[in-house]
């Protein structure tokens, strides 16, 4: 009895960790955008859902695995994010938050209703050959698709880290986030860097969408839920912290899975919000955030 319970708990934690890595990648996109230009992307879940639909379409109509369409989706989202920032959002940088909120809300509504118009309200999923494969490690069983999605998410996060620490553009973006006046003084083209950043954030969340569709069916109504989820993760992890976004993703992934086991699956968001409230009370800057910034 107890050993059975412990095993299913370990199983839930494993599943939560794997899903949490994809959550982390999604939240990373939000965190990068906020950390660099202080723009809160209220259309984040919507952008991810578009990514899920694109991966689903690629699979349904072109028989391309989401893992293979992922780089294409990420590239497309980079370009779209770059364009969105340099045209629509750029004039709103530095304006009051409620104006940015309205703009991104409008983008969100357009995207959700676009999905609804094109793909309809039914839930869509991808049935891959590896759907029922699994790996075993001692008594633990890993779903193959979930494990692959998690590994891909970690690899992408690693690439992102390399980008921000090793490339000139990545370092320039960190510099502009660190000191805007300093960036102007050394001659960085801050507007271009902002567009690049939004592109990178959108590419992250698009990639997360392509991974997510392999483990969860998509409907247009998921979008708002994911926007909220991304916020919870980023706030729990610490606004603007890349490590925080990843760790927050793992924490929320695990808490959802364990809540699904111990309570009811429908109560999983309640536990996430509980964690959010606890963090806000005890460590308002988030688990990995710096205080006072």
């Amino acid at each position, binding site marked *: 009895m107890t050993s059975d319970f412990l095993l299913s708990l370990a199983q839930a934690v494993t599943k939560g960790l794997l899903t949490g890595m994809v959550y982390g990648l999604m939240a990373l996109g939000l965190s990068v955008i906020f950390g660099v230009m202080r723009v809160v992307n209220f259309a984040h879940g919507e952008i991810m859902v578009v990514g899920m639909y694109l991966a689903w379409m690629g699979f349904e109509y072109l028989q391309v695995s989401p893992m293979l369409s992922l780089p294409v989706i990420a590239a497309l989202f980079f370009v779209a994010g770059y364009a969105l920032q340099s045209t629509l959002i750029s004039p709103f940088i530095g304006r009051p938050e409620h104006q940015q909120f309205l703009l991104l809300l409008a983008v969100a509504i357009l995207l959700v209703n676009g999905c609804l118009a094109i793909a309809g309200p039914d839930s869509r999923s991808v049935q891959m050959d590896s759907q029922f494969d699994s790996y075993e490690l001692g008594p633990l069983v890993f779903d193959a698709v979930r494990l692959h999605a998690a590994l891909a998410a970690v690899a992408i996060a690693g690439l992102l880290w390399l980008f921000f620490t090793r490339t000139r553009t990545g370092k320039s973006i960190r510099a502009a986030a660190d000191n805007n006046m300093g960036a102007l003084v050394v*001659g960085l083209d801050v507007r271009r860097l902002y567009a690049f950043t939004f592109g990178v954030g959108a590419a992250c969340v698009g990639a997360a969408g392509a991974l997510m569709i392999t483990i969860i069916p998509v409907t247009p109504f998921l979008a708002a839920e994911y926007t909220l989820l991304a916020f919870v993760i980023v706030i729990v992890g610490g606004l603007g912290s890349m490590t925080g976004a990843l760790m927050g993703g793992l924490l929320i992934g695990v808490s959802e899975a364990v809540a699904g086991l111990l309570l009811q699956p429908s109560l999983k968001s309640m536990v996430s919000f509980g964690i959010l409230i606890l963090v806000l009370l005890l460590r308002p800057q988030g688990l990995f955030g710096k205080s006072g910034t």
Partner: protein
Amino acid sequence: MSEALLRVDGLDLYYGDAQALDGVSLEIAAGEIVAIVGANGAGKSSLIRAIHGIERPARGTVRFDGTDITGWPSHRVCEAGIGHVAEGRQVFPNLTVLENLEMGATPRRARAAERQTLERVLEMFPRLAERRRQAAGTLSGGEQQMLAIGRCLMGQPRLIMFDEPSLGLAPTIVQEVFRIVRRLNEEGLTILLVEQNVMASLKIAHRGYVLENGRIGLSGAGGELLANDRVRQAYLGL
């Protein structure tokens, strides 16, 4: 005088309705040190930022090396060969010293010789070399000022605009800063120096301008201004 390296003509700058610069004209010949002195709020930093393209002047022109650069965005002005050591140093606190220096080499023009320039800068500022992997925010004020200067040199400018480089530093470091400014000038750099330390800056400057409420009040050779009664009363308390 032949064509000046930098020539500013009739520059007006507003923040909303408040006028910060009113018809400012000045010129700097290649190889000169020109000081701009003035009280707090006179518009010295505004002038530098307007030349750099960080602020948009409402009227007037800025010419650098014979090219009209008025209204150019700041990154193009850097590319043209103007460097800026800003008020308050403006280092990147969470980037390492090396990363800060690398950001200084943002102008494409400066990339080819980036390694050699870095070596030169680290040789010039041994303290920075010792702390190269440290976050810039953990440096002392004096070290941050050296970093700001080193970072500017990484862009291989022909003209450097210094905005109060000695502000808030200990007297020995202040002397060091003035020594560096002079040395850079001897190595061929043209210098625009804004300083609250009027005596020291007019002493090393070839020429100077006095900025009062956004307007050029007086101008002349450094020694002349130091001997001027108005300057002595208003800025030197003599």
